[in-house]
C-alpha cells in the first residue's frame, strides 16, 4: 500500500531549498523586490548599451537643462546627461554593495563558525573583538576606514566590507552554536567525520539561510554606505559617476536644478527598497514560522 502511495507521487526531488524557493515565489512583495533588483542589475550590466550618452561627456551648450525628450532626466552642471550617469552609477552602487558584502562574508563567516564551533577562549576572544567593532556605528567606522585607506571606489568597498564583517561573525557564530548541538552533527561525528568536515559539510549548509537573508539586507545598507562615502568624496572619484557623488554636486543646485538630485536619490531609494523587500521575503521563505 505504501509503495502505491509512493508511486503515485510525481517524480520530483523536493529539497528544502526548493521548498523555500517555492514559498519565495508566492511571496508578492519579495517578488516585487526581486524585480526591482533584477531591473537594476540589468541596467548596470547593460549600461554601455542602454545609456543614451557617454556619462562623462560634457557639453557647454546643455548645462542644467530640465528633463526633456532629448535628456529624460535633464543635464547637470557640466552638461552631462543625468540619465546616463544614473545608469552608469548603478554599476558603482551595485558593485559596492555586492563586493563589500562578499568581503564581509568571506571574512566573517569562517571566523564566526570557528568561534561558534570551538567555543572556549577562541570564542571569547573573537566575541570581545566583535563587540568592540560593533560598538562603533557602522557608517562612522566605514568613513574612518575609507579616509584611512584613501579615496577610491575599491577602498570604499574594502572599508564597508570590514565594517560589515562583525555582523556576519556574530550571525555565523550564533547559527553554528545552534546547529552544532543538533543530533545530526553528533551522528556525523559518530560515523567518523573529522571536525573540519563536520563544520564545512554538515553545519555550513544549515546556516546558509540566515546568512543569505542577512547578506541581502546588508547589500542595501552597503549601497547606502557607498553613496554616503561618495557623497563625502571618499568613494567613486570624478568624473566617473556615482549616485552619492551626484547628490553631493546636486545639493548646490537644489533650487535651480532639482532633477540633478531627484533621480540619483530616487535610484538609491528604489534599489535599497528592492533589496530590503527581497531580504524580508527570503526570511519568510526560509522560516515560515517567524512571521
Amino acid at each position: 500500500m505504501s509503495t502505491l502511495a509512493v508511486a503515485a507521487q510525481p517524480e520530483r526531488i523536493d529539497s528544502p531549498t526548493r521548498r523555500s524557493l517555492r514559498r519565495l515565489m508566492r511571496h508578492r512583495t519579495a517578488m516585487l523586490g526581486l524585480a526591482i533588483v533584477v531591473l537594476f542589475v540589468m541596467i548596470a550590466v547593460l549600461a554601455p548599451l542602454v545609456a543614451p550618452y557617454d556619462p562623462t561627456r560634457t557639453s557647454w551648450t546643455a548645462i542644467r537643462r530640465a528633463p526633456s525628450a532629448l535628456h529624460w532626466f535633464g543635464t547637470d552642471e557640466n552638461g552631462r546627461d543625468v540619465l546616463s550617469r544614473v545608469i552608469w552609477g548603478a554599476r558603482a552602487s551595485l558593485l559596492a554593495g555586492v563586493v563589500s558584502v562578499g568581503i564581509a562574508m568571506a571574512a566573517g563567516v569562517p571566523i564566526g563558525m570557528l568561534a561558534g564551533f570551538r567555543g572556549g577562549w577562541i570564542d571569547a576572544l573573537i566575541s570581545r573583538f566583535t563587540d568592540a567593532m560593533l560598538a562603533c556605528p557602522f557608517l562612522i567606522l566605514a568613513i574612518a576606514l575609507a579616509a584611512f585607506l584613501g579615496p577610491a571606489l575599491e577602498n570604499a568597498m574594502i572599508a564597508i566590507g570590514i565594517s560589515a564583517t562583525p555582523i556576519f561573525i556574530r550571525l555565523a557564530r550564533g547559527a553554528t552554536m545552534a546547529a552544532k548541538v543538533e543530533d545530526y552533527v553528533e551522528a556525523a561525528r559518530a560515523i567518523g567525520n573529522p571536525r573540519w568536515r563536520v563544520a564545512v559539510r554538515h553545519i555550513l549548509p544549515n546556516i546558509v539561510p540566515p546568512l543569505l537573508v542577512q547578506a541581502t539586507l546588508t547589500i542595501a545598507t552597503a549601497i547606502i554606505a557607498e553613496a554616503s562615502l561618495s557623497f563625502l568624496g571618499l568613494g567613486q572619484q570624478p568624473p566617473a559617476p556615482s549616485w552619492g557623488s551626484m547628490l553631493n554636486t546636486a545639493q548646490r543646485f537644489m533650487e535651480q536644478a532639482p532633477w540633478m538630485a531627484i533621480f540619483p536619490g530616487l535610484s538609491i531609494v528604489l534599489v535599497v527598497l528592492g533589496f530590503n523587500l527581497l531580504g524580508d521575503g527570503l526570511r519568510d521563505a526560509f522560516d515560515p514560522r517567524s512571521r
Partner: protein
Amino acid sequence: MTPLLEVRDLAVSFATDEGMVRAVDGVSFSLAPGRRLAIVGESGCGKSVTALAIMRLLAPNARAEGSVRLEGEDVLAVPDSRMRQLRGGKIAMIFQEPMTSLNPAFTVGDQIVEAIREHSDASPSEARAQAIAWLARVRIPAPERRFDEYPHRLSGGMRQRVMIAMAMACRPSVLIADEPTTALDVTIQAQILDLMRELSEETGTAIVLITHDLGVVAELAHDVLVMYAGRVAEQASVQTLFRTPQHPYTVGLMGAVPRLDEEVARLATIEGAVPSPRAWPPGCRFAPRCPFVIERCRTEVPPLAEVGPGHVAACIQAPLDRFAAAA
C-alpha cells in the same frame, strides 16, 4: 572467547561550576561477538553518558577514566585519527531522535554514501550501489527512489531505518543504540527491534542497547546491565533477571511495568527521584528510595557480588528471596 568490547571500571566526570561531578562510576561489562547487551535505567542514571564515553563523543568538559577495549585496542587512549577510523568503522551508533539525527540539507542517500566512503575505498558509484542495497536491507520500499529523497519526506520509523543503514553500512563489530525506539510508535518499535535483531544475527554485529523500557530489553537483549545513579546495580542474562531480580531497584522497575496477565489495581512506583550527581548519598545510592533499606545501607557502599551463575547484584541484602513473601 576474547570479548569484542571490554569496559573496565569506566568513570566519567564532568567539570562544572561546582567542581568535578562524577556521573558514571565503576561501570564494567564485556560483550562477545553477536551478543546483545541492554543497559537499563532511569533518566540521568548515566547510561547515555556510558555510551558516549565508549564512542569518545563526550562534551569537552567531561573526562573518562578506566578502560574501554575494542578488539584489544584501548579506545580511551588511541589518537584522534585512529578514533575516527574506529567510529563508524568498528563501532557505530544510532540515536534516540530519528527526526533530528539526519542532516536536513542532504538526501538520505548522500548521508549513507558519506559513511561508506569515509571507511572504504569504494568509488562513488559502488558506494551508491551499496547504499541502495542497505536501504533495501533495512526494508525501505523503493530504495532507488528513496536514495534521492530528503529526510523531511520520511516518517520517524523510516528515518530510524536510514540511521540503521548508515550505522551498519560499514559493517561495524559493535553497534550502540541509544534509545533507538523511544521516539517511535509502538508498532514501528517492534519492526525496528526485529530489524536490529535480524541484522545482528546475519552480520554478527554485537549490540549495546541503551533503554529505559524493559519491554524492549525482553525483545532484543541477551544480557542486561541495570544502572542506577551512575553505578551498576545488577547484571544478568535476560531470563535470570526477569525471573529472579536480586536488586531492589530492579524489582521496583519490574513492578512499574504494566502486565496483562496479572490483575493489579495500581502500578507499583518507586518513590522519590534519582539523586543528583552533585549530591550522591553515601553508602548505597538507592538507599533513600529502597523499601528494604537497613541502617548499613546508608553508610556502606555495596559491592557487586555474585548471587548466582553469571548474575551479580550490588545489594548487601541480596539474595532478596527472603523478602519475596513480604513484598
